[in-house]
């Protein structure tokens, strides 16, 4: 449907927020036969969804302190292995005890895991060193749990694709400026189309607020109040994998005690700091955070001390104060679903928040149940049974490639699962690599632009991993910008986009700009500023969306 027609339609449900929860809710609602519109102010998975570890918790981390979250995690963990196979890598995880930790805790930990239904096998330090050679060799105890690695960008897009397959409409770069309120009923959203500045209103019977930490503002727009407690976490990305299993510390959760192998890299995190709500859009990583992450990280895997850090980033967890404790002392890490009709007397408005990326599907199910209750829809939820697009049983195998050198084709199968079959690969041009670090071909970029809502290079990065490798866009960004310029028939926009993309890449490199990462960045600057003279053709004023 053309965007202007979307504006005119009245929907059963409008979902605010294009993170995993919003995308999952859109899918669930669409599968239950509702007419759905999802709106997102930036790109999909720009917020906390795309700013975490990419860890598919087994729930073990919460077993001791929060049995309920732990049970939710393990149940969703098993579900995602089935429905989102192409987003998940079944790595398993270790909880290691170091000499300075209390080995007694291991017993408590294992018992708690068992109570929550999480398999937790105590293994010997020798076996731990054998199955995960990167682990700190000084460990005195280890427990193996079904942790895994998951790609949140892929997961979100797969949910959106399925939602659209079932009739949902999705609009990114549409920010909610206000709600349409008639007496005590929310009847729609006031939007600004950020690509052209147009103001529009779209009507819906139920509005779901899935805007994460930014949901507090949406609730305010409805005239109610919710107390959110933003907890900021910083993480570091290393240039390649040092570990093949998730490595955690077997102790009470603390700073930088999880190392996750994510696709071609590994990620250490996180720090955890309460921040004022006014600062949630400031994602700069500080020197202190980098220091803590490295210092704690090498206790998990000593080789991190000499492994190249390519990037730092931070995200904000949307923690919510319990309604019965307005002081905010009692904070829930669990899922919070608020029916504002019951809570505040505002009809047609639901907020789904709290929770974790890992439990997005359950959150979506809970929110959709609430929507359906309002609309009198009795269709059962099938999101736990039906595989996401790309994760069907007949996914092509890695050897199912057409070219002699098939690195790009195989990398694409890893990223898109069975949908990789839709990527053009019948000629040398489509097979040519654009991003050499991550193996992204011309064909994959065309597919992303045509099928996966790509407006700019940052979108393209989230859909394909373009520019996420060691060189952070040095070789691929000009090639990709040129392709986008061709596909959109707009050279000027492509040039501006290129400059924004390089700025965005530098932003993440800056906190870790030493050694080889600094050399890398300097070569990039020499190429784009020196050789290509990019600064002389691009106007850098008034750029807002560099996230």
């Amino acid at each position, binding site marked *: 449907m053309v965007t202007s027609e979307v504006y005119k339609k009245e929907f059963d449900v409008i979902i605010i927020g294009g993170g995993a929860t919003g995308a999952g809710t859109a899918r669930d609602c669409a599968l239950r036969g509702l007419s759905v519109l999802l709106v997102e102010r930036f790109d999909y998975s720009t917020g906390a969804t795309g700013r975490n570890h990419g860890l598919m918790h087994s729930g073990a981390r919460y077993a001791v302190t929060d049995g309920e979250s732990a049970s939710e995690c393990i149940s969703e963990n098993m579900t995602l292995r089935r429905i989102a196979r192409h987003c998940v890598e079944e790595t398993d995880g270790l909880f290691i005890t170091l000499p300075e930790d209390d080995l007694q805790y291991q017993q408590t930990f294992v018992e708690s895991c068992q109570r929550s239904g999480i398999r937790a096998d105590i293994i010997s330090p020798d076996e731990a060193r054998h199955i995960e050679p990167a682990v700190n060799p000084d460990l005195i105890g280890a427990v193996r749990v079904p942790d895994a690695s998951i790609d949140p960008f892929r997961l979100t897009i797969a949910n959106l694709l399925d939602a659209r397959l079932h009739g949902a409409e999705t609009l990114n770069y549409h920010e909610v400026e206000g709600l349409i309120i008639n007496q005590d009923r929310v009847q729609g959203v006031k939007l600004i189309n950020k690509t052209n500045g147009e103001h529009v209103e779209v009507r819906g019977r139920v509005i779901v607020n899935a805007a994460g930490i930014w949901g507090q503002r949406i609730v305010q727009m409805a005239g109610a109040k919710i107390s959110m407690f933003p907890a900021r976490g910083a993480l570091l990305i290393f240039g390649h994998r040092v570990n093949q299993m998730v490595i955690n510390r077997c102790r009470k959760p603390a700073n930088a005690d999880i190392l996750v192998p994510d696709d071609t890299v590994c990620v250490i995190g996180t720090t955890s700091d309460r921040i004022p709500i006014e600062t949630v859009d400031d994602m700069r990583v500080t020197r202190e955070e980098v220091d803590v992450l490295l210092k704690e990280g090498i206790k998990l895997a000593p080789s991190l001390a000499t*492994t*190249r850090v390519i990037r730092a980033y931070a995200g904000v967890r949307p923690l919510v104060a319990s309604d019965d404790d307005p002081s905010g002392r009692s904070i829930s890490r669990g899922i919070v679903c608020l029916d504002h009709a019951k809570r505040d007397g505002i009809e047609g408005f639901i907020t789904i928040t709290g929770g974790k990326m890992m439990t997005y599907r359950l959150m979506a199910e809970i929110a959709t149940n609430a929507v359906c209750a309002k609309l009198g829809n009795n269709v059962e939820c099938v999101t736990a049974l039906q595989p996401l697009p790309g994760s069907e049983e007949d996914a092509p195998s890695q050897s199912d490639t057409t070219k*002699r*050198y098939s*690195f790009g084709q195989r990398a694409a199968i890893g990223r898109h699962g069975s949908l990789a079959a839709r990527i053009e690969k019948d000629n040398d041009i489509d097979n040519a690599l654009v991003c050499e*670090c991550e193996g992204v071909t011309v064909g994959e970029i065309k597919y992303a632009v045509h099928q996966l809502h790509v407006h700019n290079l940052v979108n393209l990065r989230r859909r394909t991993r373009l520019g996420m*490798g060691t060189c952070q866009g040095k070789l691929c960004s000009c090639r990709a910008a040129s392709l986008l310029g061709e596909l959109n028939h707009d050279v000027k926009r492509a040039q501006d986009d290129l400059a924004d993309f390089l700025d965005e890449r530098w932003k993440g490199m800056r906190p870790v700009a030493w050694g080889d990462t600094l050399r890398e960045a300097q070569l990039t600057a020499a190429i784009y500023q020196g050789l290509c003279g990019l600064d002389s053709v691009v106007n850098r004023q008034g750029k807002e969306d560099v996230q």
Partner: protein
Amino acid sequence: MADKMQLCNISENNFEQCTKCTICTTVCPVAAVSTDYPGPKQAGPDGERYRLKDNAYYDKVLKLCLNCKRCEVVCPSGVHIADIIQHARMSATKGHRASLRDTMLANTDLLGTMANLVAPVANAALGLKPTKLVMDSIMSIDKHRTFPAYSRIKFETWFKRHAASTQDAMPHHVSYFHGCYVNYNFPKLGQDFVKLMNAVGYGVHLLDKEQCCGVALIANGLYKQATRQARTNAASIGKAVKVDHRTVLTTSSTCTLNLRDEYPALLNVDTSDVRDSIMLATRFIYNLVDEGKINLVFKQDYKRRIAYHTACHMQRLGWQLYSIEMLRMIPGIDLQVLDQECCGISGTYGFKKENYERSQTIGSILFNHIAQAQVEAVATDCETCKWQIEMSTGLAVENPVSILADALDVEATRKANNLIS
């Protein structure tokens, strides 16, 4: 940075130091002629990240790498690109059995020993058209190739019969790692080397036990055997250097690179304590001349126009200047130094049917340069370059040591070094 973390990035073969500048790919002879091969950056450091994630990302086209090491020569960040590719091949083919063809091509020692026994028959048979066609169709050894002729008598045998007894009387001593080619195919190069060294007062000694350096074994996936032979050679060289205090000289650039750098890098056989004592004869002799320790006198009537071709492994060693400068010392030689280009054979690579065309396409730049140089012969330090250039240009190719020995006025040289009065 806290606690001295992140002072440097340490990773196998320096692969993290790659800044993706891509200069390596611009000098890769295979990438230049074949769109199937992605070039050293992609096959090396880029691919390595994916292989670290899952070895299933290993790609078979890595077999197309010549291991010429031109990528390593130009890398401004010191990344051991070719070693990364070799390592990937090694771990991907671990446990696989090499084909009969590859085993035969790789086992220079075994084949040489057998062929020496029946050299005239073997040479005749290997040169026959029917034999070539059978090898081409059954073993996939390209029919255009001719195996280097086998000598009737091994170099080692000749040395023991005709040279060994007089060596101890010399004032100085060196050891000689002759390599398979000298031993089985071309003892003349070894004889030339002995003649040259003896003329300046250096006695030549064989190692206690020498086996093929193993470069062909590594290239053809016979890693266990390569490691065994490397250990034997490392022990013999260790004794020559540390017990007998002799420098170990060679006349083949590839054997030299293998002994010095590939043993530790690929086979985990440590030769670091003797590495500096293993060198090509031309470098050793150049240094002696340069330091004024020896004098060379050349024949007055020796007149030739020769082109020097820098073998890829010679360039990796960085020693081509020694050979070039040695040749320039010969007054009668008009020396044309060719731009460094790969000849395309890379040991046994070019013998394989599937590589023949690529091999010749790669070499064509060099062959053109040689044709334009209008010379009567080509000098190079690598025997497989020699086969390739001889086959492809029809010109004779000689090792600089042979040219030096031919041009040398032995009597005058001995006098100039006070060996006879």
